[in-house]
């Protein structure tokens, strides 16, 4: 049961097409698993439709229809939404069985896992068009804790499997979290199951400890 969802501001920005690529992917991954938020997104899209309907028309070029018909003749109709390309659903190596690899991430390149501490691994996903986007997978063993930290910019997290408790709440599979510089936390993974999270990081994390800060700076978080 999903307990934590993206807030209205975030979904509204996504429905309007104003979210950055990394945050947008995080929201899309959440939407895949959350019917409640899909319904909310559709509400906002309907708002877009109503505003379009009521909006002020702009004058089109005199030959606009003829040119559009020419475009149509150049390209055949699309029968149905294109099916997923076969072989596109490549999960990272060593991905836990039974945890679906999000469809929204299928175009990302996923390098191999890297060590960042006992029972902790990470990798940075790259988007073909936006290599600078800071998108990470974090994989933390049961009972392990991340170093205590806050954030220099908003960090969005989507939990793919397992659960952690950071003192504010317990976040489980499918949950979404948004944390900014007001949130100072130490996520601790619950015993029994490793936790894998997808994170979109707007700016560097600020770790309390110097060693954690050093490791963080090495991996670019």
């Amino acid at each position, binding site marked *: 049961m999903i307990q934590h969802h993206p807030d*209205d*501001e975030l979904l*509204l*920005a*996504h*429905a*309007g*097409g*104003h*979210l*950055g*690529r*990394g945050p*947008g992917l995080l929201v*899309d991954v959440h*939407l*895949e698993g959350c*019917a*409640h938020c*899909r*319904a909310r*997104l*559709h*509400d906002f*899209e*309907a*708002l*877009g*439709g*109503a*505003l*379009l*309907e*009521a*909006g*002020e*028309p*702009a*004058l*089109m*070029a005199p030959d*606009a*229809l003829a*040119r*559009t*018909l020419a*475009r*149509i003749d150049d*390209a*055949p*109709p*699309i*029968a*149905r*939404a*294109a099916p997923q390309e076969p072989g596109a659903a490549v999960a990272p190596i060593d991905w836990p069985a039974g945890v679906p690899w999000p*469809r*929204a991430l299928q175009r990302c390149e996923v390098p191999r896992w890297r060590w960042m501490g006992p029972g902790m691994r990470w990798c940075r996903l790259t988007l073909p068009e*936006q290599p600078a*986007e800071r998108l990470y997978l974090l994989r933390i063993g049961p009972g392990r804790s991340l170093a205590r930290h806050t954030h220099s910019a908003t960090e969005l997290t989507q939990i793919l499997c397992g659960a952690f408790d950071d003192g504010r709440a317990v976040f489980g599979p499918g949950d979404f979290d948004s944390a900014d510089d007001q949130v100072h936390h130490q996520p601790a993974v619950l015993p029994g199951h490793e936790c894998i999270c997808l994170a979109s990081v707007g700016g560097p994390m600020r770790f309390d400890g110097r060693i954690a800060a050093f490791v963080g700076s090495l991996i670019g978080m």
Partner: protein
Amino acid sequence: MDIARRLVPARQAPEWRRLTSLSVVTRSPDPAQMPTSDELTNLLRAVASAADRPAFAVLFKHFAPRVKGYLVRSGTPAELAEELAQETLACVWRKAASFDPARAQVSTWVFTIARNLCIDNHRRHGDGAGQADVGIDELADAEAAGDAPDECLSTSQREQGVRQALARLPEEQVAVLRRSFYEGQPHARIADELGIPLGTVKSRIRLAVGQLRRLLDEFRP
């Protein structure tokens, strides 16, 4: 309009028109001149099933100037807006067969196409951080798997609810919502142009979304 009359059997009760006093949000021509939602759906069906060019011409006349208006309002230069509006309508032709009236009204569907083309264009030209496209086609599959019944609103309930909310909201809230969500203006610029504090921009958006949500929740079982 002759073509619309010919294609659309009898004018059904224009339900949404009765429900909405669009006066709050519209400066568009006489609503009596506008095709109803059912008419638009029938025109689109004619395009999908029979590649009906006269039907497409009616859709073009209705939507292309509105899409261009939307793009210009969201800061797209006029020439590019003309180009993207034509491309949006070409997409309407090509994707007509995948339109599902159970999921959205035509105007909402056209809004999402225009939005996604606009995002693609930003990404291709590397201006801005590269927005996220919203995975609507992918989400459709997830939805086909079956959304929980308590999350499901019928298309007409959602679209009516949104129009009622727009008609009932104070103009100052609609104005901020339109600028922020529809035109993609940053909150700081809205505050600047309207001469109101930043906090007021945020609270007006929150109030507007809250009201929209309350109205739509009334429809949810």
